[in-house]
């Protein structure tokens, strides 16, 4: 089992959700995040003073999947999130030992879906 963490542009969420759905991946969790990456930030100005914003708003997705689903998930995320421009984001794949469904207590591959 793997836990897939993806950072994407906030406005790409709907596209990513669509392409995940197409790949039959329906479960995920999302948090707000600020990201610092190759995209160098932008400049706001506030009352005449320049503000260098180098922490950009990103969405962080967490998807727990069985091993067989790793590749399709990565592919689907890339498909939904890629624009080809800097700032598109990253995907991190982490090993996961166990997964438990709180409602039933069941574990493992069944619990994930």
């Amino acid at each position, binding site marked *: 089992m793997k836990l897939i963490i993806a950072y994407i542009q906030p*406005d790409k*969420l*709907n596209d990513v959700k669509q392409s995940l759905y197409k790949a039959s991946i329906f479960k995920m969790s999302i948090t*707000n995040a600020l990201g610092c990456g190759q995209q160098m930030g932008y400049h*706001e*100005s*506030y009352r005449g003073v320049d503000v260098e914003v180098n922490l950009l708003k990103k*969405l962080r997705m967490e998807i727990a999947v069985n091993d067989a689903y790793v590749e399709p998930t990565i592919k689907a995320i890339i498909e939904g999130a890629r624009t080809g421009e800097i700032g598109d984001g990253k995907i991190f794949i982490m090993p996961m030992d166990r997964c438990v469904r709180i409602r039933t207590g069941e574990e493992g591959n069944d619990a994930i879906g």
Partner: protein
Amino acid sequence: MFIPRGGKKLLLTTVALTALSSMAFAEGEVSELESVKEELQTNMNILWTAMAAFLVFFMQPGFAMVEAGFTRAKNVCNIMMKNLMDFSIGSVMWWLIGFGLMFGAGGTFIGGGSHIATSDYSASPLNWTFFIFQCVFAGTAATIVSGAMAERTKFTSYLLYSVVICGVIYPISGHWAWGSLFGVSEGWLEGKGFLDFAGSTVVHSCGAWLALAGAITLGPRIGKYSPDGKSKAILGHNIPMATLGVFILWFGWFGFNPGSTTEASSAIGYIAVTTNLAAAAGAITALLTSWIRFGKPDTGMSLNGVLAGLVAITAGCDCVSLPGALIIGAIAGILVVLSVEFIDKVLKIDDPVGAVSVHGVCGVWGTLALCFFMNEPAEGYSAMSQLATQLTGVGAMFLWAFGGGMILFNVIKYTIGLRTSREEEIKGLDLGEHGNEGYAGFQIFLNQ
């Protein structure tokens, strides 16, 4: 209290006549009493009209709060700026040419140049108070448009629009119905006996039909309709802010309607009662209608219901009976819910705050409805013939404001452009147009 035809005009004429007569008998004692009375009454009228103007001015933040509350956090600075600048630009344009076009000496279709950018205030003691009162009315018409065009309009284009509405569009149609209020000119609509005491048509419909033209020309916000044309909800980010806005507007309307007497008299109280009853009735019926149609009592619709009732009673607030006011408001509350749905789901025009339904549909409703709820109709009054007159006014306003709006917004569209770029709309106009952020530090989901 019923002012048969021509609305407020007569009041001023009476004052003028009194002034005349008091001059004629300047030697007698009675006339001295008359002139003291008139002097005092004039001061009182000034006081009242000024206070009412300030209340109407205060509707500006009301509109800003309603619009911002019903839209997304990422556009909130832009909305504040539009509401601030349309009034600022409008005030200057009003002084430069608007007031002259609306009230200056001229024909029945357009006022003349006699009061363009004037600094002369000697004519009548009420003049400058009258000027500021009419100025905040023009500002109201201007700001109505902002809501319907929210979240996707280029800021520069919006500024340009502001110049035109307060400088040209509003004053000209305003002249038709209210030109004689200043006493030097008369419009063709008021000549026909068109009744619109405080501006259901003159102010609200004018703004609303321009708003409709703007919303059509712009097209819907990204994501408002799914590829198969289904309407999707774009949630407002701050409902308490919208509610505060509605309460501020309700408060300001006590200047808008009773203030349109421009005279301290017992009519103030009566108009305040009709205004309040219609607003309350609108809130109640919109609540019930949304409850029936959507299964739960909807906050946004109830707020719109208040405004619907207020807009509808504006035309006849002085002359309808109390049960009439209640009915006019109640039907407006139903109409606004159905109209918002119709415009959104059937016409597929994206009006984020429901401005067209509130100010346009209910403005028309109120202007026509007054015919049937007269409190003390004059001898020989015929509801049907009055209805014909009212229909003329309503139709003329639609042609003028919607037609003018379509031309204006299309000219802007094909010259400097009316809509922001796709990227800017998605990231939010605050960053794109202003480089600002509305709620720095707050964590907000920006995925819509």
